[in-house]
């Protein structure tokens, strides 16, 4: 798929996110918007998967470790055809499969329930180990938030991926430098960040995570790395695409109000 088309989908997905959160009245726009290119590129260009056969055994797997950013994943899955786009507006409503944090038993295409931070990479390791045991060629992708990597379990999992030389695994860190209480540098210093991953035995790729060409290039490069896991540290802008949300920490976990939804959609090119 051409980059222009992927850009169009990113815009569409960002509009979905805004509409969903506006309708729900709560949720996490900042990290959903920052990671749009990272996830859209996977589902529309990089990964082998079948929307009409979500359990296809040779599919590539995606684990959203930062489960609170599920509006992004729901929008992408719907746009891929896993479920009707209209369902998106049921986000966080009683009885909806689209829970506030993703539940794999409810939504086709969700590989694992996540939301309690720090657990996704361990699950991804297990799926990668099973792939190797079963002599399958599928790849496993796991998206983490940078703030999420405060969790100790992440570093346990980072050691495991290295110990078992999981080159069928690619972690992506949405390095938007903000977390719920403020700047990651103020809350818990992560730097020297790429060096940490390298010291744990990972191959590190650093990119502008909102630049689709760089994102696609990184995924391609990651596939070629053998004998060790790869992490893509993606520098992104939290709230990307909406001027009043970009780099503003308060948009980590609050939904836009009606007039903010309209303003945001206008910025995203929607005629109202």
């Amino acid at each position, binding site marked *: 798929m051409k980059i222009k088309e992927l850009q169009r989908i990113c815009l569409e997905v960002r509009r979905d996110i805004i509409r969903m959160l506006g309708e729900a009245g709560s949720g996490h726009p900042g990290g959903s918007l920052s990671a749009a290119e990272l996830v859209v590129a996977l589902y529309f260009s990089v990964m082998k998967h079948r929307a009409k056969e979500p359990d296809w055994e040779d599919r590539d797997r995606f684990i959203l470790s930062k489960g609170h950013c599920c509006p992004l994943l729901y929008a992408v899955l719907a746009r891929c055809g896993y479920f009707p786009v209209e369902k998106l507006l049921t986000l966080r409503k009683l009885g909806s499969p689209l829970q506030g944090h993703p*539940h*794999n*038993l409810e939504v086709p295409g969700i*590989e*694992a*329930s*996540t*939301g*309690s931070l*720090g*657990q*996704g*990479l*361990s*699950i*991804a*390791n*297990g*799926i*990668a*180990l*099973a*792939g190797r*045991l*079963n002599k399958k060629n599928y790849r496993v992708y796991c998206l983490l938030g940078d703030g999420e990597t405060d969790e*100790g*379990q992440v570093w*346990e*999992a980072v*050691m*495991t991926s290295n*110990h*078992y030389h999981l080159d069928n695994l690619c972690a992506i860190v949405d390095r938007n430098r903000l977390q719920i209480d403020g700047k990651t540098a103020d809350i818990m210093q992560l730097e020297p960040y790429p060096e940490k991953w390298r010291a744990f035995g990972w191959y590190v790729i650093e990119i502008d995570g909102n630049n689709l060409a760089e994102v696609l290039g990184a995924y391609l490069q990651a596939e070629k790395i053998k004998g060790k896991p790869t992490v893509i540290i993606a520098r992104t802008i939290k709230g990307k695409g909406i001027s009043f949300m970009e780099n503003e920490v308060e948009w980590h976990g609050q939904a836009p109000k009606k007039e903010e939804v309209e303003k945001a959609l206008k910025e995203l090119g929607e005629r109202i």
Partner: protein
Amino acid sequence: MKLKSTRDGYGEALLRLGRENPRVVVLTADLGESTRSHWFKKEFPERFFQMGVAEADMVGTAAGLALSGKIPFMGSFGVFVTGRVWDQLRVSVAYNNANVKIGSTHCGITVGEDGATHQAIEDIALMRVLPGFTVIVPADNIQAIKATIAAAKIYGPVYLRLGRASLPVVTKENAEFNIGKAEILKEGKDLTIIACGVMVCQSSEAASILEKEGISVRLINLHTIKPIDEEAIIKAAKETGAILTAEEHQVMGGMGSAVAEVVMENCPVPMKRIGILDRFGQSGKPEELMREYGLTAENIVKEAKNLLKRKTI
């Protein structure tokens, strides 16, 4: 009498399962030998995963393996594979309904000399509140083998509570084992003793003493705490009019509490729960600790007599 531990039963069953089902994989967090997982490792090295001293990651990895069609058994000490990783069990395993089996060894105070930090006495309470979890406490080595094999045959998370100590065998080799179906070891009409794990042996001894004094005791081995055998419990309440429970666990939230919930809602009768009373364990020899905490046949006999005085029907 033959002495063997329930953890040995777990290890032996893993070997059998490994031979008959290629989907069975085993994980441990630096406790391969202690959990008897190392026997499986020797025969099936490619299906064995050493996770280092990192239990949280082990739980997630097991969940990932399960979500990919494997049947992972993960072994560690009861304290490390329940409370320490309870949120991982809650979200990565239970909320995913992942087909993960937990071999939780070194449960209870019979761990002995290692003391309180290593004696899981809250684990039944922690595990039975997680939706979808099956909770099994085998009474001896033979039952541990059967329970481990049975755990592999059902879909969904299973918690196997196992012990370190070598103990007398109280169940029969040819006895049926069905998850969720209590084992009636002896019929009786004056009161029912419901026990699990190592307390089945103590309760059996207590029942013999009581019988000699003319008290007819029904003895139930409640090896499955969840799903609980309501029918057997209600029947015992109706027919014997008094229930005493005995477990090597905190009485709060444990097996006795689970039994009390059923009795209270269906057929309230006088009850007495024997177990650990809101204390930590401590170092000592297993048999010394059992005495210190009142987990003995003598204490069961004493409390059974007190309970009989409260009987109304």
